[in-house]
């Protein structure tokens, strides 16, 4: 179907996390080119360290320093790096058991090709030039033929000056959103300043905006019904706090509006009347801004107020 509207949709947010004592020490350590592990209840050293034992669930706090060299325990050659992965050129994902640790850390290995990578190969950390206290302070691993680090890790008190206490992990996901049949028809009609809902074949209610199904009957709606343009304020609130990036003077009124012929109220801003004179039952009509996809706001029509009984089911 070509009737369906689609548009790019980017979901982007900074994921802000505070760190506990173990993670704080580990990530601060990376900033200082020091790799810390934590000793588990069974005496083994976990790298990267966790705050609770994976087997006993006991709190773990005994930190140790391990080597920056290690052994690949498994690998996977990634010929097509994706956005934000550690290297922009083809690389191997590796799990690396650092010398002195019992568990392995996931990261990237910079190698010329899959033939240059094997389980058991020796590698070392390549540090990032700029380090902030994050797992990406390890730029990647690189092949290393030199001396192994000590098997026995050394005690570390986990103390650093100016410890990292939180991380901000930026997340971004790209989508192409498609509106589906019902919403596409609604949006296209809106572009022509018409409001078109859909009627349920069973209960005959008209839903605006249409969502493709009647939430009472659980069946598809298909019959298109033009509603409005005028409607009735069924309930409202007075907004006194300015929203970010919204260029509207407070106080203003935000209302539920039952368009004539609709069985579900939609919401919109009321203007063209002092905010403290807006009332339930007020008759309103949409005001369209030049080239806009939605009504900018609704204003009084000057008609007498609607009788409560005519809209009480829609409050």
């Amino acid at each position: 179907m070509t009737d369906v509207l689609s548009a790019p949709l980017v979901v982007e947010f900074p994921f802000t996390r505070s760190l506990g004592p173990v993670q704080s020490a580990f990530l601060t350590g990376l900033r200082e080119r020091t790799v810390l592990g934590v000793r588990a209840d069974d005496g083994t050293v976990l790298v990267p360290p966790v705050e609770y034992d994976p087997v006993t669930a006991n709190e773990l706090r005994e930190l140790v320093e391990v080597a920056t060299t290690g052994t690949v325990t498994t690998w996977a050659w990634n010929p097509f790096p994706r956005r934000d992965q550690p290297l922009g050129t083809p690389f191997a994902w590796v799990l690396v058991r650092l010398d002195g640790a019992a568990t392995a850390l996931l990261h990237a290995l910079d190698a010329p090709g899959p033939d240059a990578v094997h389980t058991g190969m020796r590698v070392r950390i390549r540090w990032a030039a700029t380090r902030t206290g994050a797992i990406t302070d390890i730029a990647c691993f690189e092949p290393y033929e030199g001396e192994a680090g000590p098997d026995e890790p050394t005690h570390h008190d986990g103390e650093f000056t100016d410890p990292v206490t939180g991380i901000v992990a930026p997340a971004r996901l790209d989508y192409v959103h498609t509106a589906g049949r019902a919403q596409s028809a609604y949006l296209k009609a809106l572009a022509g300043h018409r409001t078109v809902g859909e009627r349920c074949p069973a209960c005959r209610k008209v839903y605006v905006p249409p969502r493709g199904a009647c939430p009472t009957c659980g069946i598809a709606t298909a019959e298109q019904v033009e509603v409005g343009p005028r409607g009735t304020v069924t309930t409202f609130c007075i907004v006194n706090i300015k929203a970010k990036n919204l260029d509207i003077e407070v106080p203003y009124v935000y209302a539920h509006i039952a368009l004539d012929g609709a069985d579900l109220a939609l919401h919109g801003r009321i203007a063209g009347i002092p905010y403290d004179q807006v009332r339930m039952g007020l008759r309103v009509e949409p005001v369209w801004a030049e080239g806009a996809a939605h009504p900018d706001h609704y204003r009084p029509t000057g008609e007498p107020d609607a009788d409560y009984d005519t809209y009480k089911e829609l409050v």
Partner: protein
Amino acid sequence: MRDVAIVAFAQTAHRRRTDELSEVDLLMPVLHEVLGATGLKANEIGFTCSGSADYLAGRAFSFTMALDGVGAHPPISESHVEMDGAWALYEAWVKIMTGEADTALVYSYGKSSPGEVRDVLTRQLDPYYLAPLWPDSVSLAALQAQALIDAGDTDEAALASIAARSRTDATTNPYAQLTGDVPAGDHLVHPLRTGDCPPIGDGAAAVVLAAGDTARALCARPAWIRGIDHRIEAHSLGVRDLTDSPSTRLAAQHAGAFERPVDTAELHAPFTSQEVVLRKALGLGGDTRINPSGGALAANPIMAAGLIRLGEAAARIHRGESDRALAHATSGPCLQQNLVAVLEGESAHA
């Protein structure tokens, strides 16, 4: 203990894209199909539980929109898990076992087409040590596959034969997305080739659960849930033995899977290598028919593919093609969390 059975199952034809369908459009046909099969009206259902993930399509609270397709007004008893629908089924099973409901509608859906599912799934990873590296789902599965090859548990040819068997079986599954002669293809992330990976697509599924005599009244041969359990392992991949799945084994043990052999197993193994791990953990031999539906290698609507394993296993019992079947669902990277259910037909129980 109450006897609880899966009495109806429906799924969509899974497709790469469903641009013309909103989530509720996708879902409604399967909801109507299971209600039609049992003759139940929406308001006769005791409990409704769904599974989905907003990140897949990038739409916040999409499950509340999907509820329109259920007929949730006047208000119904309802719940949702941000997980595969297999876990929604588990919640519904608990609800019936506690006596709070006699019937339950369970559904799940996933629209992977709007986003890049390999990137989307990185957001379920630990935000401190893993997510900042953006390790995609295929890469993590490939690390597990290499570990299996290193351990001598499989090789690329054996993996290819799992892919071929699955897609050949899927030719008789009208709902499957990827069937027949599918080339092994190039390495997507070595050692996994495109043929070792599941198709990306959109789909939905629904089942109806019922207790005791209600189940017998609604279905000629109910698929009785003899046991169901789910277990989880540590999140960090470097802590786990990726060649084994102790959580699957433990869940199977609690579900009673090892008490008697099963004739059928529907395993939720999106990657060929994961079937190797699961067969080993479950001790499945040549006597057990593995994934006669084609499994997740033939259709992998994320958040529904696990529920579909339970549905496919139940449907074989409904049709008299199986007497005792194992159904498995997984969640998280490299089979981190696993659910196992044992289903039986009535004659097998006698």
